[in-house]
């Protein structure tokens, strides 16, 4: 236990909601990004998977949204301390997009419109753990929350759920992405409070 703050009681939740350490509950949907929100035209939007030997597989907006989709209800945890419970999304499982891709890679770099990147282990994107999400709460995903489409990996801190995603690059070795280079953790498990490098 940390240093007790004299006279601090705090606003506890109902007691039965379990949040990762250091997180608090919000009913808003805050926005965290490093720069302006990119606006992306659906006609030129593309999603590209690139393998470690440079093979590419790509989808247009029409193609992606025609794939079988899932309705997803998950808690999300942002490294800036807020958590939001039971958020509703619709999207395509990442494993669907990787189904026909031959790779020996263990890591993935997610690339976004606007230039952001984030790194993840490939196994964290498979088995019903990650989606390319394009609807939030029954409506098209708004640009400030990552629309037209974002990666959704709710079991990791939310910066791993790259907004404005435009592709996944499969890699044999791990490399830090944008936020990770700026000092955030390479893996980012909220339950182990892996916020920053060294946690």
């Amino acid at each position, binding site marked *: *236990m*940390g240093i007790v703050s004299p*006279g*601090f009681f*705090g606003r506890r939740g109902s007691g039965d909601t379990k949040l990762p350490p250091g997180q608090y509950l919000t009913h808003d949907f805050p926005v965290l*990004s490093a*720069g*302006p*929100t990119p606006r992306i035209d659906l006609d030129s939007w593309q999603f590209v998977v690139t393998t470690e030997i440079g093979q590419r597989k790509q989808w247009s907006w029409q193609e992606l949204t025609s794939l079988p989709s899932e309705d997803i209800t998950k808690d999300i945890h942002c490294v800036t*301390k807020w958590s939001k419970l039971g958020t509703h999304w619709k999207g395509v499982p990442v494993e669907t997009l990787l189904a026909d891709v031959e790779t020996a890679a263990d890591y993935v770099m997610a690339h976004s419109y606007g230039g952001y990147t984030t790194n993840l282990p490939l196994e964290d994107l498979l088995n019903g753990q990650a989606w390319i999400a394009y609807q939030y709460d029954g409506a098209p995903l708004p640009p400030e929350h990552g629309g037209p489409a974002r990666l959704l990996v709710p079991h990791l801190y939310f910066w791993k759920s790259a907004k404005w995603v435009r592709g996944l690059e499969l890699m044999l070795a791990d490399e830090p992405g944008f936020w990770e280079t700026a000092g955030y953790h390479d893996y980012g498990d909220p339950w182990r409070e892996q916020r920053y490098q060294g946690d």
Partner: protein
Amino acid sequence: MATLTERRRETDSAATLVFDVPDWPGHLPGQHVDIKLTAEDGYSTERSYSIASPAEGDRIELTIQRVHDGEVSPYLLEGLGVGDPIEIRGPIGGWFVWRDTDPDPVVLVAGGSGVVPLMAMVRARKAAGSRIPFRLIYSVRTPEDMLYANELRARVRDDMGLDIAYAYTREAPPDWPGEVGRLKLATVATHGWPPDLMPACFVCGPTGFVEAVADILVAQGHDPRKVKTERFGPTGT
């Protein structure tokens, strides 16, 4: 572990807290710290606060704006006593920072308490004797909400190469010649830098404010990669 050594009033709803943090490693202007509060039974919660002061030994200053019914900000403003210990972690963030070796002119756009990390940049510029031209556009609700009002007035006079423009969203001073309302493209274009100078742009404030201003800067022609943002709060109001 840190100790509160002083609390200075800034406005009716904000104060600057000075902490002594032994072995503080130093920081860059724009970085923040995480504060962790723990109750007697072990319940704890954390929030982020930007550092308002430039690097200066073991001392850091934070400026806290009260959020109505907030869990942490009212405690920091009233509960925590001078001499009390507190858990502070940092410095954090390697992106929303200004380095005095960066050659580009700088435009800072602040909404409300978003001025805090930008003030650290203004102060660090002076402390480093930098001649990089800085322009600050500072939007507040009313004149009474303005943080650092006297210091900003003095700095415009004394810090060569610092310009400041103010904007009021609810209520302006009596003799105010401009409009009252949300920041507009025209204000940012007039009081910022033209895009061809390739300025470094820093925008900080409530989420809605940052979204709007970052869009304006991109619409004005600034390279999105030169626009760095820090979003303080979930709501835009």
